[in-house]
């Protein structure tokens, strides 16, 4: 009976595509990041700014890039927003210098929604991703999958996030585009 109750208590909800399942976290979908890199260079991409629409704090457990095997995710830190200096789109190093990021294990709570004064921005947790490619070429991930817990419920949600890495850097003088230009 205890096992059954535990299973019933820790339910898991999943969504795909738009990141709008029944979980309280919403992920802003700011667009696309295209970044030329050297092979093996770990760069920072800041993405999927998470906002909690619920009344209970949410704790992020795990982050994956989808589809797997394209852009390699080597680390996840977080940045609490809003803060002076805004967020991060991309940086040539990871973890980012001069930004108060912390590893996901240390800073992973998306604060619950609270009444705010007019014009006061809502708090958000920005995912700061350390990414690389181990091979030359153009590599693109399309979604970020976030696993998080609210109370006794676990949610797995996907946010459409396009990260494109082009390597090596000098092979893409016109920038990083799908056809390798």
């Amino acid at each position, binding site marked *: 009976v205890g096992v059954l109750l535990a299973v019933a208590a820790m339910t898991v909800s999943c969504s795909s595509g738009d990141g709008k399942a029944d979980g309280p976290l919403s992920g802003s*979908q700011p667009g696309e*990041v295209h*970044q030329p890199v050297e092979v093996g260079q770990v760069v920072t991409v800041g993405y999927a700014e998470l906002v909690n629409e619920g009344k209970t704090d949410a704790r992020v457990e795990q982050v994956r890039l989808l589809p797997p095997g394209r852009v390699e995710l080597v680390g996840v830190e977080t940045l609490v927003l809003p803060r*002076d*200096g805004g967020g*991060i*789109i991309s940086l040539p190093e990871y973890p980012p210098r001069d930004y108060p990021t912390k590893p996901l294990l240390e800073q992973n709570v998306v604060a619950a929604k609270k009444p705010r004064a007019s014009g006061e921005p809502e708090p958000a947790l920005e995912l700061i991703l350390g990414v690389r490619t181990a091979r030359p070429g153009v590599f693109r991930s399309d979604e970020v999958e976030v696993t998080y817990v609210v109370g006794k419920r676990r949610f797995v949600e996907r946010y459409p996030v396009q990260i494109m890495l082009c390597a090596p850097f000098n092979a893409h003088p016109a920038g990083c585009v799908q056809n390798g230009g």
Partner: protein
Amino acid sequence: MNPRPRWILLVATFGLLTVSMPAAFADDDPPVLWTGIVRSSGGGAPAEVTAYLQPPADVALEEQGTRLDPIAAVTADFAGRFTLRSPYDDRIRAAEDRAGWISVLVVAMTADGMSMATDSVRFDSVRHGWSTRTAETERDGTVSAKATGTDAGVPDRPAVMTLHPSPARAEGSFHAMAAKHRICFMKKDTRELGVTQVTVGELDLAQHWGGQFNYVDTNTSTFEVGFRYEGEGGWSAGGSSSFSKEGGSESINPVAADGYPRHLFYRADMVFSTFKMDCGGRTAYSLKPTAWTGGMRPEMASAALCDRRYLTPVGPNGSFVRQDGSSQTFSGAFSIAGFGGGATSTNSRSVRHEWKNSDPHTRNLCGVSNLITRDTRVVSLP
């Protein structure tokens, strides 16, 4: 220890859950279309409030005026508060445009005054509610309506509808009767307003920043609507309008990165129309864009200022495409017939802003009034 009390507690708890669930979820009322407050000079006004379905802009209206179809009606309480509810039915489906938008006109009437407001909404079948956002720009999972002062961007609808006094107070009893019957006619004004440019996009490019702006459909843009009441002189803002109209080319020429800074507004050629409404024996006019010709022209403009709280770095040779949910609002997006209105363009599959840092060093984009993932104009820094 006797286990019975635990079972009693468990059964009692389960019973409470069973009883409380229907109260929480079995709501048979139609979904909320609009909530608001009606005020007169003396405070809250218990007005008759009616929501009408406005015909799509391209539907021909009868010469003498087409009688509008009321889809919801209520009497405001003595504080002026009201809630309009409407089901999603065949009448509404018939009035939807390609993106699912319908245009709603809300009229508040008393014996002494009238107020009008408008908004474009669509039915969200997933959440079974009315929404002011398209599915592709819905960010927060809530069925929402922006009102003045509660969010950034062009307000979708006024939070407070202020009654405009009737110019013919002696006919108050007639107006009271007419208001009760909620009769409203609309006629498209035949005055030629012509094509006016509306700012829908912007690229601020410092030296060695390149960029591109694409705009292929109006369906994620919101345009402020003006109202003018008979007996009064000028236009005043009274809500917003959204409509779907494809027309632009897939790609507007990219701006190459070079040594020259550029600040470009992208201005869409919009056809504006005025509509004459006779409601409860009173007359008012609305003014709004009803079509896009497909034309788009870049114009040099003055740059906005960066708020350094919103600096956001972009790596060497890196690009950023602002898309899907973030937006930019242009407070003076257009000016026509004495009405200056704003516009908000929400980035989406139809609206796309791209910046490219063509420099071997990390440089910054910057929000003018917010984080660049939210509603703000964006500038690039040298």
